[in-house]
């Protein structure tokens, strides 16, 4: 039976808690209630309140406590109820967790789970994609899986990692994507992108929920005789620049796609990387498809206009191919 993206995260957490008694969860409403999205439903019954810690509404305390517990050898997984609230814990993440190893050699093996993304009519405070606040913070690792396979493999890898990992799980994917997962204990390496669809005419580089938009666009483009390669970054920090550049070397055209807003988004860093490393392979300008620089609006026509979609990608891809 196929496993949903949400179920994959849940399985990953469950297996790691069964494997390692030092792994524990903390967050708001994650225990008896099972979490706002039910990712941790049933954990309280199985692991008890010692390992499934319900907290006050207190993101700085949640992440701070995770950091302090990690100093004593525990492996905390902190849940932000929505990624939008992670800003309440900003100082703990970017000034405390991220800098300990470099400053005084102290490992901070924590995971901060952050349900992110739009398309769910969540409005300005339940829809954001705040990944770039953290991608520009050395010392953190930032992952953003798009598939159930990667969600399970990356949550397990994040828990085993000895550096702080921010785990962006896209809310719109929770129950919408599913696949058959292999049995056994496996992980997905942090820091490795994946070619999700091979192609030869242009490269669409993306991550998170936009992978599915890219694949939908690539399918339509194939019907028009355009072969699009789709690269799923999976990890945003450290960034797998090699896989991105290898793809662009092959196709000579780059379309960079993300749901995050435009200015300071990942596409800018990717464009700079491509220009610096494989400029002579380019046959056309680098193209970005992103959300505009606005807050995430609530009303459906506005949110639809805000979010990138396959039609917007196809339009830019056609332009690139004509160039």
């Amino acid at each position: 039976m196929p496993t949903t993206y949400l179920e994959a995260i849940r399985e990953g957490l469950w297996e790691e808690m069964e494997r390692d008694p030092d792994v524990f969860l903390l967050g708001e409403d994650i225990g008896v209630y099972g979490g706002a999205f039910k990712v941790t439903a049933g954990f309280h019954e199985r692991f008890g309140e010692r390992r499934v810690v319900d907290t006050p509404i207190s993101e700085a305390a949640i992440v701070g406590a995770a950091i302090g517990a990690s100093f004593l050898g525990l492996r905390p997984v902190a849940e932000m109820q929505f990624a939008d609230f992670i800003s309440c814990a900003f100082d703990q993440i970017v000034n405390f967790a991220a800098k300990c190893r470099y400053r005084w050699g102290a490992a901070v093996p924590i995971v901060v789970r952050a349900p992110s993304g739009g398309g769910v009519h969540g409005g300005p405070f339940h829809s954001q994609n705040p990944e770039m606040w953290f991608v520009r913070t050395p010392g953190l690792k930032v992952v953003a899986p798009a598939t159930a396979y990667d969600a399970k493999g990356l949550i397990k890898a994040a828990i085993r990692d000895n550096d702080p990992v921010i785990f962006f799980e896209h809310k719109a994917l929770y129950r919408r994507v599913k696949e058959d997962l292999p049995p056994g204990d496996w992980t997905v390496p942090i820091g490795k992108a994946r070619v999700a669809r091979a192609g030869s005419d242009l490269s669409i580089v993306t991550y998170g929920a936009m992978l599915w938009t890219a694949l939908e666009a690539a399918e339509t483009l194939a019907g028009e005789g355009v072969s699009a390669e789709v690269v799923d970054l999976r990890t945003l920090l450290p960034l797998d620049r090699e896989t991105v550049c290898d793809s662009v070397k092959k196709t000579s055209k780059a379309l960079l796609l993300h749901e995050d807003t435009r200015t300071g988004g990942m596409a800018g860093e990717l464009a700079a990387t491509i220009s610096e490393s494989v400029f002579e392979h380019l046959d056309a300008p680098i193209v970005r498809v992103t959300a505009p620089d606005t807050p995430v609006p609530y009303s459906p026509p506005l949110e639809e206009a805000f979010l990138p979609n396959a039609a917007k990608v196809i339009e830019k891809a056609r332009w690139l191919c004509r160039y």
Partner: protein
Amino acid sequence: MGTQSMSATQAGLAHKCFYYMALMREIEDRVERKLYRQGKIVGGVYVGRGQEAISVGAALLAEPEDVLFPSHRDMAAFLIRGVPPGRILAQYMGREGGLTRGRDGNMHMGDLKLHIVAFISALAATVPVAAGAALALQYKGSGNVAMCWFGEGSTSLGHWHEGMNFASVKKLPVAWICNNNQYAYSTPVSAQMACANVADRGASYNIPAEIVDGNDVLAVHEATRRALAQVRSGAGPYLLECKTFRMTGHSAHDAAHYVPQELRDEWERLDPIERLETRMLAEGWAARDEIDAVRAQIQREVDEAVAWAEASPFPGAASLLDGVYEDG
């Protein structure tokens, strides 16, 4: 215990306290009044002059596995845990021999092998982290506790309140120790908070709190003993407010003209080291020549430590990128 042996115990404790307070004072004097002016301290200097009784009186009660979270004015916590003065001086000078090997300066340092956590500049952020360490101690069923120091200025920040609340709700084994030195940089306590005492804040978290004379090291020691008894019993956190005074500016570049002279004079007379010395002589716990001998020994120790630190190389620029992550 008989009166005589109790007095001997007090005398022994007083000697220990005197040594660590005087050592901290001498290291900080050397840093602030000599090395800084010679340009050998490459960054800021934040000392605990006048506040030595707090880190000494409290940290002497820490068990080796208790986790310490000292602030920048609590150098003695490091000394008591066995960090050599030379390494602290090297830290100030940005040398390889410092605890952070030149990655950070002044008292921004820690060593997990010694169970000391390095604070970050926004000091209140340490409070939830200390609560987390206490959570881990509780999780592991350890009898150990966390001890966390901060100033009264920290109590204005949200992280402080979140950490207090979390620790109390979860009944975590952590002792909160406030150095209320009456000024947060240039802001007096009356402009920092509308309640009279930091201890008053304890009530809103149902945390027992007490106020102690922070310039009386034996009183701080006794109060810490009460705090730790409560914390080790599993009853939850305890808040100790040590009333003291910052006898310097916020940092070496701050002449603190905003502090009234009468206040300085008043607290000058309450210098915790002089007070202890006077008491030791009066109680017959030490003779004048013993005190002089300790001071002379400290001078030699710090001379050697300065020489050691100055001999420690600066880090090579080639190491710039190392250690951001475990794998490089």
